[in-house]
């Protein structure tokens, strides 16, 4: 499952971030690393980008970018 598929209000743990380019590096540098937990806070009015909480702060990223993040959803 990837981060873009988690509904607002859902949460989980990051398991991997795929890719080798600058975008992947930026996502990781912002603290979205394997093992960290996150919560999806909402989406922008047009449905994209999404807003998540990670490491105690709010981060927004596009769905296409969130699709690089493999996650395990909390039940």
């Amino acid at each position, binding site marked *: 499952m990837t981060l873009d598929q988690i509904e607002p209000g859902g949460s989980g743990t990051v398991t991997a971030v795929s890719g080798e380019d600058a975008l992947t590096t*930026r996502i*990781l*540098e912002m603290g979205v690393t394997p093992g*960290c937990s996150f919560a999806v806070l909402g989406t922008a*009015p047009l449905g994209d980008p999404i807003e998540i909480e990670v490491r105690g702060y709010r981060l927004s*990223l*596009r769905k296409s*970018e969130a699709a690089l993040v493999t996650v395990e959803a909390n039940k």
Partner: protein
Amino acid sequence: MLTNQTDTEITVALVGNPNTGKSTLFNALSGQNQRTGNYPGVTVEKKIGHYKIEDQQFQVIDLPGTYSLGPKSPDETIALKVLLGRQSDVPEPDVIICVADANNLERNLFLVSQVTDLGATVILALNMVDVATRNGIQVDAERLAERLDIPVVPIQANKKVGIEQLKTEINRVITSGAVSTGHSFPEQVEQEIDTVKQAIDPVGCNPRSRFLAQRLLLDGSGMVSKIVGPNAALEGVVNASRQRLADSGVQLAAIESMSRYRIISELTEQAIRRPTERATTLTDRIDRVLTNRIWGVVVFIVVMVAIFQAIFVWSVPLMDGIDGSVGWLADTVGGWLPEGAFRSLVTDGMIAGVGSVIIFLPQILILFLFIALLEDCGYMARAAYLMDKMMSRIGLSGKSFIPLLSSFGCAIPGIMATRTIDNWRDRLITMLVAPLMSCSARLPVYILLIAAFVPATGLLNGWISLQGLVMFSMYVIGVVVAMAMAWLLRMTLLKGDTPPFVMELPEYKIPSIVNALKRMWEQAAAFLKRAGTLIFAVSIVVWALSYFPHPASIEQQVQDRYAAMDFQGTAEEFEAAVYRDTSSTYLQQSYLARVGKTIEPVVRPLGWDWKVASAVVASFPAREVVVGTLGVLYNVGDEVDAESDTLRDRLKSATWDGSDRKVFNLPMALGLMVFFALCAQCISTLAIMVRETGGYRWPIFTFVYMTALAYVGALVVYQVGMRISG
């Protein structure tokens, strides 16, 4: 290590994530003693301040905010270069102060951990400790200092708390010369860093070369190798090291973040206590409204209308005031000087030239006050978040929205506002299309031509006025062409993927008025200094074109002609008529008119005669000049404005030289409006582009593409219009 104790200046660099209050700390440290400019060759803002303790001078450099020392933008590259001591115009920092937000320490520590690897003297300034305490976050500064092996000073930069302690600490570390070195990576990676370091600096005299080696090894963006310069041998070593790591299963894009955040997690477990239950914060409550599907959009529209209103309407009294004062000054000074070329140079050239520069100040000041407040309080990021989906369709990001919206008021502040866009290509495209937005300077042109040539009929039972519809179409044409150009540029010259939108949404906070006013003033000063000189020069050139040649015989001829005629009217009316006729006759034989006559064959397909051509050429410094120039050329005096009935009538009755065919008709007027909607007739915009793009290449490109579009647009409208109207 440090020998410069008294005579030389000590350099302190401030580095930190965006939204950590770094600039507030910079202001608190250096007070009024600061200057801003650009780093050479790039448009990254360079802020340097000074302070003094006893006899020791300190120089503070405020580096651009960055999340990482793995550079991905010009801003981040500059930060890294300065820290490495490889930015030629600033000395290598003696002390580095890493500013971190105590509320958001975990992510902030990523940059801190990179800086401690640098092999430099580092202090951690822990900002906003008061807010953190209020949020129930307890940071154990001593434990943090012990684990990071650097001094940690808690501060509240906005209340100037802890600033003295920070200065004392800077003095102390200068004397002790303690240098931090980190060991953040798995052994295998550290070994490869050593290998690269050997290739850069075999003797090992520069303590920062190991950090440079680390950056070279880990950076996939290619920006670090540009810092070093071309070096095939070194590149070979780096590639071999990267290959060995990749072969053994190391994900190079991920290894740094994974290693550092692993250490950070341990660290925060020991030094930070957070409330176990996440309480609903103020930001949560505000965001529930501001990013809501309905209310978020409503508030967004209200904010944007307010900005639009401010730069469009509120600035008008100020601009009129400036306009009036400039006119008054020209009259007064003109009264002191003897009539002749010198008086005309001073009043029509210099004073009017300066006036055309400062007339933009109200819009720049108002827009930047808004932008600074919106950025400071945290709304700017939300605005970009809301608009991203729409803007990404044309290959831009949400951050381009406000600069483009502002350009409806005036493209100059709009282009300056693109500094909030961190991706360079994105920023460049936004700057290149911003002048297509119909700015307020086009209004006088639209008003004049619409009132004169578009019938005042109503459509749909009078609900829509045809004149209003034509005006609205001009705005639509600008927007549609801008969107198409942005898309086209992204597909051709500035090829690339849509830039990433991985962006922090900062906590809301009460904006600092002092910071906002400071920011506003910096922008205004930058505009006056850099753009002012160029605008001034061009204004003088255009003045000279329209003034010379200026033989005294012409004045005599006009006077003789009037003396011979039987003039009906008062003495004042007689004087005015002679004056108008004289200026008109002079202008009609000036170099400007000769230029107009020379290009007439080129613009004839647009339905323009040489007078229109001359007026368009004269309006190169600023579009609205076309109205006044048409006024002089069609002999109604230079005091006309767009609402002048006489000018309208003159235009309506103007005929081609030597025939009774009318110059102006509906298709020609519509074409002329389209020309002004699409052309780049604004030297101020082009001058500010020179500054913001760091050269003449892009402004020239903009002028050429916009003029070409304007010509084609006017041609199509005129030719098609003439076919239809027969």
